[in-house]
């Protein structure tokens, strides 16, 4: 049996664990480098599970989560990152838009 990387009840989300990125710049880079189909697959899988995911994560201290919970939490932040692409733009980012890499995170 392979080693689980997400909490037991959320192993169905493991194909998307590549979105578990800790920094805003990393998450936005993955969004820009993904196709809208890849982003939608992540979004449509995560969305119906979010209620359960956040209810589960809320049981743990925000600054000291177990490793698997931290990974799942980082996936929720990545979901926030891709939400505009799916819900508003229908593409990773709009045409002619400013390069997000030039928005340099200062406090995060």
């Amino acid at each position, binding site marked *: 049996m392979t080693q689980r990387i997400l909490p037991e009840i959320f192993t169905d989300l493991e194909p998307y664990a590549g979105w578990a990125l800790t920094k805003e710049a990393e998450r936005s880079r993955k969004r820009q480098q993904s196709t809208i189909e890849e982003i*939608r697959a992540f*979004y449509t899988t995560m*969305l119906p599970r*979010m*209620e359960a995911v*956040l*209810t589960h*994560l*809320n049981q*743990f201290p*925000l600054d000291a*989560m177990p490793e698997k919970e931290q990974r799942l*939490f980082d996936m*929720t*932040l990545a*979901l*926030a*990152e891709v*939400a*505009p*692409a*799916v*819900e*508003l*733009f*229908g593409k990773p*980012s*709009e045409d*002619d*838009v*400013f390069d*997000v890499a*030039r*928005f*340099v*995170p*200062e*406090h*995060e």
Partner: protein
Amino acid sequence: MLPRLWKIGSGFIANTKRSTKTCTPMSADFNQRWHASYPELGTDPVPIEPLISPAYFALERDRIFRRVWLQVGRIEQLPEGGSYFVKDIPICQTSIVVVRGKDGQVRAFHNVCSHRSNKLLWGRRGSCQVMTCKFHGWSYGLDGKLSFVPDEENFFHFDKGRHGLTPVATEIWNGFIFIHLNPHPQETLREYLAEVADGLTGYPFAQLSTTRFSWRIDLRANWKIAQDAFQESYHLPFMHKQSLPDSYTSPKNPFCHYFGVKLWTHHRRSSSYGNPDHCPSPLEIVAQRFGSSVVNRTFAMEDLPPGVNPERRREWALDTFMVFPNFNIFVLNGTYLTHQFWPIAPDRTLWEVSTYFPAAQTAGQRFSQEYGKVLLRDVLLEDASTLEATQSVLASGAKTHYVLQEQEILVRHAHKVVEDWVGFYRERENRQ
């Protein structure tokens, strides 16, 4: 084919739940005549020259930025004695170090060594007990006094007491640290902020400032072009038709008209409408359920001080307080954000954006903040591209003036206040 303006919601969710109410005529209370209240502003087109002229830029440096209180950061950036941050102010060709002493006092100094004027601290922020120059090891205490000079006996008639760092005036208002490059300003910070401070009395800045997300953008545009974009809402239904399809507009107020505008001597305020029938996206619903810090979704007016949303409109979304010359505070219900525009060159600006929240206690609250933060950033990406595009053709000579409409009165006021201080046209007229 429908005009592109109305083709909202091309995304996967297709915004199917968004309002499809029939269009009703704009209600009279969204159609106020602001210019009639400020006849001294006139209604003429506004010249473009101040947005491209190096001569104008030099006057802005000498007559504005060297002579006003400038916001440089928040006290949360200085949690303990020895905490410091460095704030470069390129238009004034200086760098400032802001440091909290062991006595708790916040002080600011030119970040310049007294020996041979090397830039003293090169990092952006940190903590130290003494500030030591890399060049020859001169060291200064947190109070700016020169404390150690290597090989001191080889200097001539030397008195360490006369060679401390050059102080700049420093005052704090609601946790915002301001400096003034004149060490003896003619007015206190409170006097300078005047109506802005009155209006924001009681707003819970301390409570809302424990978490901060910020970005820095090196923008190829004049600082006033950048700031102008945040002083009018006329662009929202066009520029942000994808990102904000129904948050600040509705059939009742399709062009995002303000319902409050107040222009003071230097500063200004506006109150913006929020659509109570805004239809949240699926993930926004999750963010609202698990956190309270997503913009524009709560209407607990009684929790706001009287100077915020002074019109007490139920459909209120936010107030903007524009602090002359370059600091803007956007006050919402449960969060606030700031913009600051630091001129670097006539066509280049350091733009700093921060969004502030109460510290998240749970993963759900932190997720909710991230949702709001990413949406804000994606909205600002739309603004940023236009600002640079504008600057790229501004010097073409194709146009000499801006044409401004009723709802762009804050832009008109901003340009007038800058000119009041700079006097570029006043002096040109006097010469003729």
